[in-house]
């Protein structure tokens, strides 16, 4: 066979994706994202309060209401926040111009967040970007007024944004143990947001054996007035398929899997090392099918990433109409105790997701069931490309009708779709690497493996992050940005060289995901005879198995 160097896929240039943190809470989330190393995206912080703005690590900053609030906060008044944002409208517009995907992170309830976010979302849509809003709602103890402000803002955002994913801070508290410090609680919440953004980005930007694109994502999130369900898990060793799924299901946003029972569409992305087998996938999907209704459409994607080594990650994205969610939620509360399966889950998987509490957290209101664009353009950079080069890349072409080569065309198409808000799948934009010599293309074709459905390049990062022991640095991010830098949205990149550097994420993220998703390894005890206690759980105290006679232990 002719050796085939896998082509670098069309990428979404990093300049096409922008993450905006609005208000104080938004800035915190942004910092978390920056520290975790978000490559391929620009970060922008917007705030009225100059003090917090200057302390943000985001490279780009916009001060809202320079004349109105004079560098102070908005004092919890959304109308003030809104006016402040209006004052900076031009600046914001400039910052958003020509961006294809815009994530807005905001903590609702306060003045700047609740007031400015809707306006920024509006501007983002005006600029033709696909807009996803990640919002946190206030803690219960913050009072009715803030909650009301948050709800008003949510209602506005739900009509403005393409997708709205909300996290309930009150539930976020359940992410951490009661004993842990308050900063832990907040950083857990920020981490959750950061992880979700990452997952969405991966889905859109990374390639897979069986690819998943924006269209699939939109399909998964498409029910109007819905809440986003998101879970991601990683595992290794024996049984990793089931374990990874289990870990994904314990996500607080999934209510330990029980919320999936009612969904219509579930997007599943599996990423594993080179030794991932078809059998494992089958096992995993079979496991998942117990949690989703038979009638549900399963959007399946998979990718192989050598950086995963022996691990396997699963990411689930779905949505549930709010009304059903409510019903479900109350049900789940009342029967929480009885959900033995779930309980077991948490118990077993030790710290998975910090053993959380159920539910929701997020509500995604996909307002416009909009634009299904497939943005198959995947960033081949970094970790992925290792995988890419080693593996045959499938250009998943499923339902695409058109092959569009020109970046500009793509863009046009993209915009059209956006505006028309067509949920249809017809507008999938597929990009073929036309420049490839025919023979290569054929090769590629022939090498193609599975792809029946689309692939979601989701959790590669997670995976990578869990296993790559490296410290994150902005520098690193910068580097990868460079690698990816491209101007056109769907720029085409020809075949590229070897694997890009393995992605590096923040230590914290590594720890967190390792903690969260990897079941703690059991030490193989050199052990000894245990007599009548044989077969019981090791009776460990301070590293010694108390069931083994001290006489034997200490003589050794």
């Amino acid at each position, binding site marked *: 066979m002719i050796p085939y160097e896998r082509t670098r896929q069309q990428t979404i240039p990093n300049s096409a994706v922008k993450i905006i943190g609005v208000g104080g809470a938004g800035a915190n989330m942004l910092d978390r994202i920056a520290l975790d190393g978000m490559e391929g995206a620009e970060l922008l912080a917007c705030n009225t309060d100059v003090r917090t703005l200057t302390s943000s690590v985001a490279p780009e900053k916009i001060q809202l209401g320079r004349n109105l609030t004079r560098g102070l906060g908005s004092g919890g008044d959304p109308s003030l926040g809104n006016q402040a944002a209006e004052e900076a409208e031009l600046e914001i517009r400039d910052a958003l111009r020509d961006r294809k995907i815009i994530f807005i992170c905001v903590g609702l309830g306060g003045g700047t967040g609740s007031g400015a976010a809707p306006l920024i979302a509006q501007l983002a849509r005006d600029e033709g970007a696909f807009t996803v809003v990640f919002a946190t709602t206030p803690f219960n103890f913050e009072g009715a007024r803030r909650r009301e402000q948050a709800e008003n803002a949510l209602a506005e955002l739900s009509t403005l944004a393409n997708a709205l994913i909300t996290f309930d801070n009150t539930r976020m508290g359940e992410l951490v143990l*009661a004993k842990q410090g308050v900063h832990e609680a907040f950083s857990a919440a920020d981490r959750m947001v950061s992880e979700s953004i990452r997952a969405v980005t991966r889905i859109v930007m990374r390639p897979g054996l069986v690819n998943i694109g924006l269209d699939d994502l939109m399909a998964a999130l498409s029910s109007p007035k819905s809440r986003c369900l998101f879970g991601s898990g990683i595992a290794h060793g024996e049984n990793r398929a089931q374990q990874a799924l289990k870990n994904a299901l314990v996500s607080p946003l999934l209510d330990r899997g029980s919320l999936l029972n009612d969904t219509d569409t579930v997007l599943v992305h599996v990423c594993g090392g080179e030794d991932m087998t078809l059998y494992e996938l089958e096992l995993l999907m079979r496991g998942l099918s117990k949690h989703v209704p038979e009638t549900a459409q399963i959007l399946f994607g998979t990718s192989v990433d050598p950086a995963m080594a022996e691990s396997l990650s699963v990411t689930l994205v779905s949505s549930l109409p709010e009304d059903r969610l409510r019903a479900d939620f109350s049900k789940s509360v009342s029967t929480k105790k009885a959900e033995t399966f779930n309980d077991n889950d948490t118990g077993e998987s030790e710290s998975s997701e910090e053993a959380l509490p159920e539910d929701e957290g997020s509500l995604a209101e996909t307002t416009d069931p909009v634009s299904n664009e497939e943005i198959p353009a995947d960033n081949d950079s970094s970790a992925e490309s290792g995988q890419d080069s080693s593996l045959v890349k499938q250009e998943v072409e499923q339902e695409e009708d058109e092959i569009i080569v020109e970046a500009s065309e793509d863009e046009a198409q993209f915009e059209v779709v956006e505006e028309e808000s067509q949920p249809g799948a017809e507008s999938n934009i597929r990009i073929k690497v036309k420049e490839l010599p025919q023979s290569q293309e054929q090769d590629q074709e022939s090498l193609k493996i599975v792809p029946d459905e689309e692939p979601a390049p989701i959790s590669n990062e997670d995976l990578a992050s869990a296993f790559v022991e490296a410290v994150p640095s902005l520098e690193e991010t910068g580097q990868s940005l460079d690698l990816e830098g491209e101007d056109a949205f769907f720029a085409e990149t020809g075949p590229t060289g070897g694997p890009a550097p393995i992605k590096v994420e923040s230590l914290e993220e590594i720890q967190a995901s390792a903690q969260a998703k990897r079941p703690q390894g059991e030490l193989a005890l050199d052990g000894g005879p*245990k007599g*009548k*206690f044989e077969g*019981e759980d090791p009776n460990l105290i301070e590293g010694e198995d*108390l069931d*083994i*006679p*001290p*006489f034997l232990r200490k003589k050794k």
Partner: protein
Amino acid sequence: MGKPRIHVGLEIGTTKTVMVVAEVKPDGSVKILGLGETSSAGVRKGEIVDYPQIRACVKAALLKAEDLSDVDISSVFLSVTGPHIEGLNNRGTYRLPEGEPEIRPRHVEEVKEIASDIAIPSEHVYLHSLIRHYAVDGQPHATMPTGLMGRKLDAEFHIVHGVRTRVQNSIKCAREIPLDVDDVVFAPIASAQVVLERKWKEAGALVLDIGGGTTDYVLYVDGAILASGCIPVGGDHVTNDIHLVTHLPLSKAEQVKKTEGCASGDPEKSDGIVTVPDEGGFPDVELKRQILNDVIRMRFQETLELVKERLPQDGLVRVGKGVFLTGGSSQMAGLGELAQDVFGLPVYKPESPDVSGVHAYIKDPQYSTALGLIRYAQILEEERPNSTAFSRASGFFRSLWPFGG
């Protein structure tokens, strides 16, 4: 408390299940009416692992106790233990509102609430929250501070909590007999009530309840509990160790442990050879006493040191009285000497407490937990003349018992 009351204590232990029926007279004296005992099956390291088996054991103990005492038993005080149970201390502070310089009962309630409001893992349940002492404006007061003038009220609590489901297993076992459960008591706290006199609690004492499957401890300092806990090692482990090292069958190992073993480390007692007779006519097994005693001593030494490590740093320094050994395994020869070596404190084995009735039981440290439950019930009743133990307990159970009451 006009008329005598009958209390029943139930201990579901690793080696045996004991039910004690006692009468508490109006003058406060306790009379044991009867005691039902069966050897346990289905309990490992203090926790129930085989439900049907242990239920049969409890049933049998109940029948025996009812038979002996001629009392129709409907409710019991239940002791629980297991390595999942732990004790910790917490301090609550309450600043009196402006214009109210005098401490009133509701202020005390408030501070109690604050002190017992401690973050325990969500799957855990409170077993006890025991007041250690109050302080008014930083000055310690052992008793009720109501009526005193002050600005700031502190309360220190010792809180014992354990895994809800595991505690429920024991309760469920009793409820299905069916028996009502008046209260659930952490085993060493019960034992301490019978082992320690009030003045010893004041002086400071460590109670070690070494049972078949667990070693439970509770440390009293200044009349209040400073630390409590459980280590999942007991007499069964010693037997098992002997079995593993010498390859004697378990039944023989148990017998050798009781009759020949010694934990003192005294070289004189480790001289020579133990001969284990064989009933089947095969040659007797010979065993070096040195090895036997080393196995036993190392096990107990390790266990005692584990307890010592878990005590708060200044805990042992503040013990004025000494270490009290109780529980079935405390009958091990030489254990007193070993405990003295480990803790460097005077060691006491339990004496007959202040109860009358079937005396033979009372001298036996095996029954200290079950008897302690009676004392516990008595103390509870003395402390709460109005709100009876029952109403308190039923409130407790409503929160704990999932199937309604």
